[in-house]
């Protein structure tokens, strides 16, 4: 199980580092991508534009820090779920977007949303599995006995 956890950690860390670097290297393109979702007003969207890539990078690094790894995995579950909701709302509203996920600037519309939704579901699943595996491997801390009688 430890090998599986490390493999998942490696995949997630690589993907989120890659995603972060593409966004940090071209923040205006990421800003355009966020604007295309028609989800946030200008100022919150601008703050997300500069903050999100660094959050992805921080979480990718934190996955490898023993005391922070499980928290980072949990936060990746939340983050990918937010991405998924953003994608689905745009799809259901019939909006053409640029994903902004990994520096890809191609326009997504109609059934072209499917692979993006599938990829996000895959990332959420991987992060959930890692979160569960890390819980099993974590040392018993104060209060843990109450959760695992």
């Amino acid at each position, binding site marked *: 199980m430890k090998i599986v956890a490390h493999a998942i950690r490696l995949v997630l860390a690589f993907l989120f580092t890659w995603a972060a670097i593409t966004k940090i290297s071209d923040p*205006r393109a990421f800003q355009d991508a966020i604007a295309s979702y028609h989800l946030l007003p200008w100022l919150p969207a601008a703050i997300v534009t500069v903050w999100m890539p660094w959050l992805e990078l921080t979480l990718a690094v934190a996955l490898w820090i023993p005391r922070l790894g499980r928290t980072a995995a949990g936060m990746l579950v939340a983050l990918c779920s937010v991405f998924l909701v953003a994608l689905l709302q745009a799809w259901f509203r019939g909006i053409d977007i640029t994903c902004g996920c990994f520096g890809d600037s191609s326009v997504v519309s109609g059934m072209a949303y499917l692979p993006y939704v599938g990829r996000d579901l895959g990332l959420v699943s991987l992060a959930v599995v890692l979160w569960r595996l890390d819980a099993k491997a974590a040392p018993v801390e104060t209060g843990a006995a109450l959760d695992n009688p």
Partner: protein
Amino acid sequence: MGSLRKSAALLAIAAVLGGLSVTFNPAARAVLLDALREDEITVADAKALGAAALWIDARSRADFESGHVEGALQLNEDSWIELLIPVIERWQPGMPVVVYCDSQGCQASRKVAERLRAEAGIDSAKVLRGDWSELRPR
């Protein structure tokens, strides 16, 4: 340290790094300052150009037919070759070109302007910053 505290710490670290990037990276700073890009033109400047500019509507045919800037030509990526010919016929060297779509959030105008510059050699193609409906007479 509880999970909430760890989460807050990770969020704060990311915020500090984001703040540093705004301080030291001009491109990140431009995001927060909402600076006009090289390939953009404001609604006021575009209005001032008026009929001297070639107006390109990058929206769908249905949207174009429901209303557009007077004299605008339609050009989008769905029918690029077919729609590009009238644009090239109308454009003359030195003529400013303004490409617009629904709003600042739509990406079609940027894509069309990029392709006009790269594939048709129309270097003066600019993206209208803002909603084209602001150009309608009130």
